[in-house]
């Protein structure tokens, strides 16, 4: 992906985040969790399509996609997010 394309993709993400922030004034609070998860998925997709991914990031993206497309209850979602945070924390020690 060319730099201009990456810039445009990132601008779309910025727009999504600003629109989400505005929307949350009128929407249920729990939507905020989902918007953050969705924004993460969108960012990871940009990283992947612009050659900034690796095995760890690709796995992370799969897990985030699974997270945002599933209909987990709150407890299951918390556990899933906890598990992801622990994996990232471990990975960060090696980077």
């Amino acid at each position, binding site marked *: 992906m060319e730099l201009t394309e990456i810039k445009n993709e990132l601008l779309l993400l910025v*727009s999504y985040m600003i629109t989400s922030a505005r929307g949350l004034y009128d929407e249920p609070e729990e939507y905020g969790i989902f*918007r953050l998860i969705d924004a993460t998925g969108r960012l990871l997709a940009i990283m992947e399509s612009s050659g900034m991914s690796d095995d760890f990031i690709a796995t992370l993206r799969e897990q985030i996609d699974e997270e945002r*497309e599933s209909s987990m209850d709150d407890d299951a979602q918390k556990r899933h997010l906890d598990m992801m945070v622990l994996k990232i924390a471990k990975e960060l020690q090696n980077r």
Partner: protein
Amino acid sequence: METLEAIRTRRSVRSYTSEPIDDADLQKIIEAAASAPSGGNRQSWLFISVCDPKNIARMRAICPGIVGIPAGIIVLCLDLQGQKRENLPIINYLDIGAAMQNILLVAHDLGLGGCAIGSFHVEGVKEFLKIPDHMEPVLLTVLGKPKSIPSAPRKKPLQEIYFHESYKEK
């Protein structure tokens, strides 16, 4: 597909393949939307379809409720008829709901998945799609070939929500 079967098996689908929507299918879906009942047969609605992947990407940036990347978006607009949104009779909004349900059922019948979306920036969508001032986007419906179909959500038992002849306290 039988109507009752379509109603029972339809799901809110939020993940799609990259397969585009056939033009003939899109036409059937819009015809179904326009065939919905409306109070006093006003039909004070307008439908805009967005299928260009570039425009879908841009719409996703101002419509946080769109999860996944659909092959098409239908914007259901209401004609404000010179009134403020908050002063419009509720029946006008219900008409849009009826059109939306027709869209989802026909899409399901055609093998497409769909989902109604209420989380979007109204003014942003108006600006992006050049929708005139007297028209108000009320709902979006996103469509595409399902990548996965969610299992049936729990529905309230009829005993909880239905009474015959008169309401009875539990």
